[in-house]
């Protein structure tokens, strides 16, 4: 039998250059996900292919929930639809007990369609049409008001009716971190949030049920949550003291990190991110030490998305070509581009080969299949000697990619979920040209041409 071929490679040896992680210790191939062979998945469902692990989602959710419930008696998670609103994913979180947290009329309708009771839907975001607001009022959903225009629209909608809306306000604040997300909600320090509360409590049709904040995303400092919690508690106390209205819940939003590595980060994500326990400790300690009477402890709502699902998502891809850049660097072209891997704009995703290689590796840039210069998955990564047809696994892609993906240049691929018994379910079919053009209308006078 002939020996296995590996394409020839020559690498210049540089001495004296320090590598913060030492020399590479080899690239372990990832050949299966939850016991299902990657080759079987790709042979059946094609390439590229998104794979979601149900087991990983449930494990992560339960770990997060436990971190909070072991410290605080009243905890409720609400699944952030924008992080991943595939019906199968949302239903999985609802099975685990999550409410729905939506930020548009589209997402709201998706939650209703998924069977979430209206009163367990939190409606966030700056864009709620009059029709959306009316629907949320009728369903007794929790409307988190983002700005005065929305507040006054809601007042107008309810004027002259017997209906009452359950509302909270979103509050932005200085928690000592940069950038301060002051484009959403009412500002705490300027007194704007207080003015909004005063307006709400003076309205017969509005019930102020909670206070909400969402201080940022990929928050590396749990201490910022302690500051935010303290400010929400103070606002809740002041509201109760001056108006007699006791808010029922504090919603600390999301923003917990996944273990992905941010671009520009010196250390790997897994080495720097806080754990669920760190976040829980910061938030719960603040509430418990604030001085609420036991029967007045507010419900603690959390809307974390990324940290609950990123790790459960994999993107499988295939090498289309291996080429050489003008400076001699290797460039590998994959069939997974930024069109379906939006998060590669801010993460250095971990990438593993899906088959065995020798110990030889080379530095390379990884590009996607799009005929666009921006389509770069990794600017520099050391991987084995990949060749056309080889398969790769891109890790931690569960958050945002299956919602922020673009139908740009090419179509979006299949998404499968591996259930806890190892059975594979197709949860979103790959698009076809028909699924795209069905939305288009061609005017009669453009229906023919002669070339």
């Amino acid at each position, binding site marked *: 039998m*002939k*020996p296995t071929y590996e394409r020839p*490679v020559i690498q210049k040896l540089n001495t004296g250059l320090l590598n913060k992680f030492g020399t590479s210790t080899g690239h372990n191939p990832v050949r299966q996900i939850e016991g299902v062979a990657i080759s079987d998945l790709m042979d059946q469902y094609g390439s590229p292919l998104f794979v979601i692990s149900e087991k990983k989602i449930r494990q992560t959710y339960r770990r997060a929930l436990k971190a909070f419930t072991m410290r605080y008696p009243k905890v409720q998670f609400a699944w952030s639809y924008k992080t991943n609103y595939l019906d199968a994913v949302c239903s999985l979180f609802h099975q685990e007990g999550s409410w729905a947290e939506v930020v548009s009329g589209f997402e709201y309708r998706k939650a209703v369609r998924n069977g979430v009771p209206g009163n367990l839907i939190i409606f966030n975001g700056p864009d709620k049409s009059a029709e959306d607001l009316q629907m949320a009022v009728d369903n007794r959903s929790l409307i988190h008001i983002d700005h005065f225009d929305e507040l006054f629209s809601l007042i107008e909608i309810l004027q002259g009716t017997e209906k009452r809306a359950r509302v909270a306000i979103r509050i932005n604040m200085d928690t000592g971190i940069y950038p301060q997300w002051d484009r959403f909600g009412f500002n705490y320090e300027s007194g704007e949030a207080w003015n909004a509360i005063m307006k709400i409590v003076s309205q017969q049709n509005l019930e102020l049920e909670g206070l909400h904040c969402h201080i940022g995303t990929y928050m590396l400092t749990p201490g910022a949550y302690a500051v935010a919690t303290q400010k929400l508690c103070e606002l809740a106390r002041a509201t109760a003291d001056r108006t007699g209205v006791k808010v029922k819940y504090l919603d600390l939003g999301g923003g917990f990190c996944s273990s992905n590595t941010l671009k520009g980060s010196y250390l790997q994500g897994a080495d720097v991110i806080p754990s669920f326990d760190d976040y829980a400790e910061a938030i719960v300690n603040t509430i418990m030490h604030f001085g609420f009477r036991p029967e007045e402890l507010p419900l603690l709502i959390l809307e974390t998305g990324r940290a609950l699902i990123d790790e459960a998502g994999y993107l499988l891809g295939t090498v289309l070509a291996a080429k050489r850049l003008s400076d001699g660097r290797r460039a590998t072209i994959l069939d997974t581009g930024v069109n379906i891997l939006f998060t590669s704009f801010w993460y250095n995703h971990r990438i593993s080969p899906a088959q065995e290689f*020798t110990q030889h590796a080379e530095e390379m840039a990884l590009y996607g299949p799009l005929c666009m210069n921006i389509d770069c998955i990794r600017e520099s990564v050391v991987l084995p000697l990949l060749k056309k047809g080889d398969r790769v696994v891109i890790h931690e892609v569960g958050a945002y990619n299956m919602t922020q993906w673009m139908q740009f240049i090419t179509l979006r691929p299949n998404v499968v979920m591996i259930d806890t018994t190892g059975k594979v379910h197709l949860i979103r079919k790959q698009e076809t040209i028909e699924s795209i053009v069905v939305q288009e209308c061609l005017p009669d006078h453009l229906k023919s041409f002669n070339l």
Partner: protein
Amino acid sequence: MNIRRNIAISENGFIFNPLTGDSFSVNETGLFILQKLKEGETRETIMSTLQEEFELDANSAEIDLNDFLSMLKSYQLTEYEDA
């Protein structure tokens, strides 16, 4: 294409260029090609030898060999050739 005569090639894939002081490492296939070049074989014969030696199609052999030879040239390991 000829390898410079003073280039040292060890049997485990360590390459040294005494002229520049640069050192390199190659994998097994790279070493195989370098030895054939050192023996004076041509691009065409190396391409067919690769296919005889390994499980390899003609297209891949041509693409990979051309790429490898261009890297040898860019690292100044080959003798000067008139264009």
